[in-house]
């Protein structure tokens, strides 16, 4: 296998050790469990804490996003596997005396089941915690069934905007309300170009022909709109943007925050070309862009591909989006 690792069953723990060592000025292990990563310095108990549990193998999300203005903690599962509800509970308990806690959940079956279990157990322990289920991937469920969609790269808007607001002392309900609002105004569509290699199976995660791309494919190779021959960036972007525009109604003078996420080995050169074509598409409809994000943030090992996420924003969202944050791997 062409991966630079040590023991296969210690990949995640080794990675976390490297992460905590490399960024020891900003993050640390929980004293209770090395799968719970916390800010080096805990904010006071008046803060509504934000955390998430998720499978690894998609770095830098979410472990790299711990810091002021973003997450308070991340509970880390094995490769592509949500951490168990019991472990997430441990993470929540780190904030048991806080005014409130929000467990973000990206809408994937394992994350939801385990997240809901954790919430149930935490509420039994009288912790003031709520969950916020995030979804945005338009290829995973039709219009009208938005809440059955999966969490994609667009969940980033929720992390960042709630991260900034919670830092200012907002309470749980205010955060949840804004979170819902962000989710309702976010759309994501992704495309797979070629598969990376899973460090567990040592095999390709999915199969694509030499001249094929797959629009709407999930991070593990699940299907969406289907296969097509690879064509120019302009063509692909038009196809994808048309789908997004079918799904949500954008209006003249809307201000959207675009996020082009690379899934691993797609180059920054490509991502920037893609961004150019997206902005040109938006401009044609007289839609404005605000502080776009273009980089690799949610990856699936060394897969090639990308996703387009758009948040139709209001003033408050934009203010919070551009707030600085100190997380080691999130940069605005």
């Amino acid at each position, binding site marked *: 296998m062409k991966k630079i690792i040590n023991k296969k069953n210690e990949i995640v723990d080794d990675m976390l050790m490297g992460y905590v060592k490399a960024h020891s000025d900003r993050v640390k292990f929980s004293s209770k469990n090395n799968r719970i990563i916390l800010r080096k310095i805990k904010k006071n108990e008046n803060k509504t804490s934000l955390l998430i549990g998720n*499978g690894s193998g998609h770095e830098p999300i979410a472990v790299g996003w711990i810091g002021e203005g973003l997450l308070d903690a991340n509970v880390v*599962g*094995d*490769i*592509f*596997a*949500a*951490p*168990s*509800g*019991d*472990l997430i509970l441990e993470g929540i308990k780190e904030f048991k005396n806080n005014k409130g806690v929000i467990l973000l959940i990206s809408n994937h*079956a*394992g994350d939801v*089941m*385990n997240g809901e*279990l954790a919430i149930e157990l935490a509420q039994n322990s009288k912790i003031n915690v709520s969950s916020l289920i995030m979804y945005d991937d338009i290829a*995973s469920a039709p219009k009208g069934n938005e809440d059955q969609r*999966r969490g994609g790269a667009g969940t980033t808007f929720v992390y960042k905007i709630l991260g900034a607001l919670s830092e200012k002392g907002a309470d749980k309900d205010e955060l949840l309300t804004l979170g819902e609002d962000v989710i309702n105004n976010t759309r994501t569509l992704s495309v797979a170009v070629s598969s990376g290699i*899973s460090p*567990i*199976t040592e*095999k390709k*995660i999915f199969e694509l022909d030499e001249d094929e791309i797959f629009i709407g494919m*999930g991070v*593990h*190779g*699940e*299907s*969406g709109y*289907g296969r097509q021959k690879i064509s120019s960036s302009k063509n692909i972007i038009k196809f994808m943007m048309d789908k997004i525009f079918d799904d949500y109604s954008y209006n003249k003078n809307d201000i959207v925050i675009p996020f082009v996420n690379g899934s691993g080995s797609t180059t920054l050169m490509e991502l920037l070309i893609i961004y150019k074509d997206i902005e040109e598409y938006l401009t044609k409809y007289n839609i404005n862009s605000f502080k776009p994000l273009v980089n690799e943030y949610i990856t699936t090992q060394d897969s090639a591909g990308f996703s387009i996420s758009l948040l139709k924003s209001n003033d408050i969202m934009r203010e919070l989006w551009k707030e600085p944050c100190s997380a080691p791997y999130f940069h605005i």
Partner: protein
Amino acid sequence: MIKNYDNWIKKSCQNINNIYHELDDLDQKIGDGDHGTTILKGLKEAEKIFKENIENSLDVIMSIVAKQMRLVMGGSSGILMSIFFYESGKINPYNISLSIVTIFQNTVNKIKKTGKVNVGDKSILDVYVPLLDYLNTDIEIDKNLDSINKIIKSSSESTINMEAKVGRAKFLEKKGLGIIDPGAYSTSIILKEFFNSLYK
């Protein structure tokens, strides 16, 4: 009873160890390729935890075993597959047959609730439900082990012709059609050993 359970878990672990690559390959085709590795990890942990807690009563042991399985397995399968291990601790040595029906009934209820899953969705549930139906016909288990094994086998194989409505396979182009559900397959091995260990 504790000895039977110890044996059940050991045997399950051995059998899965022999074929976990096959399970990974199945999951590679319709999931993310880790089901064999995951369930093997869970069973190895179960074996260890069982031994460590052997001084306790069976229901205590199995509730610890189930929680630890859930913890090390993570994902959907950890939380769902540990349910049977948890429920199995409630066996009543004085009325095994009746309590087994209850165990399976509770397992089915909890899997349905947690997994938001129904019969025919291509999952572990498709092994539990036909078995529960059979057990509900008031048979004497010890005299019908062959039938039970047959039901377990055929119901897990019946998932080959199902299109997934849960799990990762749900998002595939063909929804896993033509491939046996890896979770159903591993469940069939575990359940077969459960009955064998109780009655043989």
